[in-house]
């Protein structure tokens, strides 16, 4: 190592009739100063290189020379190889390798910038396409269910049990926590208001009805969107990226029956159970607040039971399988439509959660409208 600082890299172009010479000097190092170029680069390859004052160099030097050679017009027909006279042997060897394979023409993907109108058009088309894809996917799900009903859908039962466990038992802790807190919050807010009217006991009605009719099922659906919908999308998406889905197909498995169907079934089966569980835990949360404000649990319980008709009680549970199907379909669909890269899997997961939550809320509003019309 010399103690003197590296001389900065320079490149000088000299044109003398037909002859073009390129004089290279200094230390060409990535971490060093930038190259100072004198003269303009002609649209011809240098016929001679002067490298007497060239110091140490890394790949920046061959990269610089190659970048110039690549800007020249592609040689047509048989041409003598580009002269590399005057370069040190090691550089010449590497550059010859780099030039050995001609640039692949036509291989460039289309990177033309789009006009505003085209962008809007593309966005519209892609929205329309994803709408169609959704309808298509739901159609396939129905067909697949039909095959299942006739006993012709093939999937591994062991996979189904694992999925059932993942979206059932393993979701219990988070569902418990959230439902309990929701019950608690409803009871707190309710009891403060009801206390003004001296109607403290009715907090039991408030918590019971809102948990059973709306909050229990909606909160469970939102938890499951984030938890299970995302997991479905990530799992299927990364299988797609690794060509695992293609491998299934070549073995004669229908990827839809094999991957999507068991997931939809599992979630449709588990959602009602989770919902009933969430309702009960939420009511227990309310009961805790009730007890703290002086309502004996037994009284609270009788009041809750008295306020709940069987119709009200069944509404939430009735909605839950639809929510389950919506979540599973969103997750699986985004997974199946994911691109072939790890980033695409991430995007698919995000889209799955957004679609799942949106469709749950939209479905819930639709149910609310229908129930109002039916006067339930």
């Amino acid at each position, binding site marked *: 190592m010399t103690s003197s600082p590296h001389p900065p890299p320079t490149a000088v172009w000299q044109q003398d009739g037909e002859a073009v010479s390129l004089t290279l000097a200094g230390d060409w190092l*990535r*971490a060093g100063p*930038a*190259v100072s170029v004198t003269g303009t680069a002609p649209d011809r390859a240098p016929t001679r290189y002067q490298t007497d004052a060239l110091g140490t160099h*890394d*790949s*920046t030097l*061959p*990269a*610089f020379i*190659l*970048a110039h050679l*690549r800007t020249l017009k592609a040689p047509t027909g048989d041409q003598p190889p580009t002269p590399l006279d005057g370069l040190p*042997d*090691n*550089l010449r*060897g*590497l550059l010859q*390798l*780099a*030039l*050995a*394979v001609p*640039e*692949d*023409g036509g*291989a*460039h*993907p289309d*990177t033309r910038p789009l006009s505003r109108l085209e962008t809007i058009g593309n966005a519209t088309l892609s929205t329309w396409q994803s709408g169609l894809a959704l309808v298509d996917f739901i159609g396939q799900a129905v067909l697949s269910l039909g095959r299942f009903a006739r006993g012709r859908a093939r999937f591994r039962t062991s996979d189904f049990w694992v999925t059932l466990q993942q979206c059932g038992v393993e979701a219990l802790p988070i569902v418990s926590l959230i439902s309990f807190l929701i019950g608690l919050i409803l009871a707190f807010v309710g009891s403060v208001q009801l206390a003004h009217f001296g109607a403290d006991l009715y907090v039991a009605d408030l918590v019971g009805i809102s948990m059973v009719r709306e909050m229990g099922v909606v909160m469970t659906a939102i938890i499951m969107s984030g938890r299970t919908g995302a997991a479905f999308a990530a799992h299927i998406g990364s299988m797609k*990226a690794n060509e695992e889905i293609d491998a299934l197909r070549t073995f004669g498995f229908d990827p839809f029956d094999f991957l999507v169907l068991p997931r939809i079934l599992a979630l449709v089966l588990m959602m009602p159970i989770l919902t009933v569980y969430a309702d009960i835990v939420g009511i227990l949360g309310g009961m805790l607040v009730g007890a703290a404000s002086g309502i004996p649990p037994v009284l609270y319980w009788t009041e809750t039971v008295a306020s709940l008709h069987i119709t009200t009680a069944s509404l939430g549970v009735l909605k839950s399988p639809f929510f389950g199907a919506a979540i599973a379909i969103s997750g699986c669909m985004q997974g199946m439509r994911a*691109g*072939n*890269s*790890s*980033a*695409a899997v991430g995007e698919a997961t995000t889209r799955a959660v957004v679609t799942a939550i949106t469709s749950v809320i939209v479905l819930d509003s639709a149910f609310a409208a229908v129930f109002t019309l039916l006067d339930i």
Partner: protein
Amino acid sequence: MAAKITVQDLTMAYGDLVVMHDLNFEIQDKDIFVIMGGSGCGKSTLLRHLIGLREPAKGSILYDGKDFTATPLAERGPFFQRFGVMYQSAALWSSLTLAENISMPLEESCKLPPKTLRDLACYKLSLVGLSGYEDFYPSQISGGMKKRAGIARAMALDPDILFLDEPSSGLDPLSSRRLDDLILGLRDGQGSTIVIVTHELASIFSIANNAVFLDTATHTQGALGNPSELRDHSDNPAVRLFLNRGDTPPSSP
């Protein structure tokens, strides 16, 4: 002068499963060193030990006489900067284009103008015969092209030591030949030391000047030396069998 890489009494294990024990060999400066052995014998595992992705169960690895395995992880930066690694599955970053795959490590290592970054990426890609594919994503190119792009990325920082895990599997004979030329070119042009895992007998004989054979039967190194000499004169029959593609090896004198 200490050897470039020294492996001392290295034992590699996954939990209780000992993959190889008591490996001892040296890799000299500007060597083209081949690690060979049957499938599943632990070649990739050895490579992962050499680059510090796994810790040895026993033994140590030294670079230029400095103990790499005894260096705490936080202080291994200077070692890592000298390594260029191509993984068996190429392991390209799938959300970046080929040019970005190469320029990303460069960008992080020092400040460079975009034009220089681009030129460097183009140069590395043309060395592996992929010029014109700068703006392709890894999912848009073939398996062999991914391998070559992986090699280009391994060369991104002009590493002192290049580790290649089966670079020529999946390449056609011509590309494979070009790869051999590239490896020789890198050794002669940049003075790199190159450690290759490969089964390609033709390229083992034409480029390697030293090799270690990992023996599945005994779980230790079966032979060490120049491959052409090992083929004809090794006293380990498994090595002769391997290097003669299973043909009855000529009896060694």
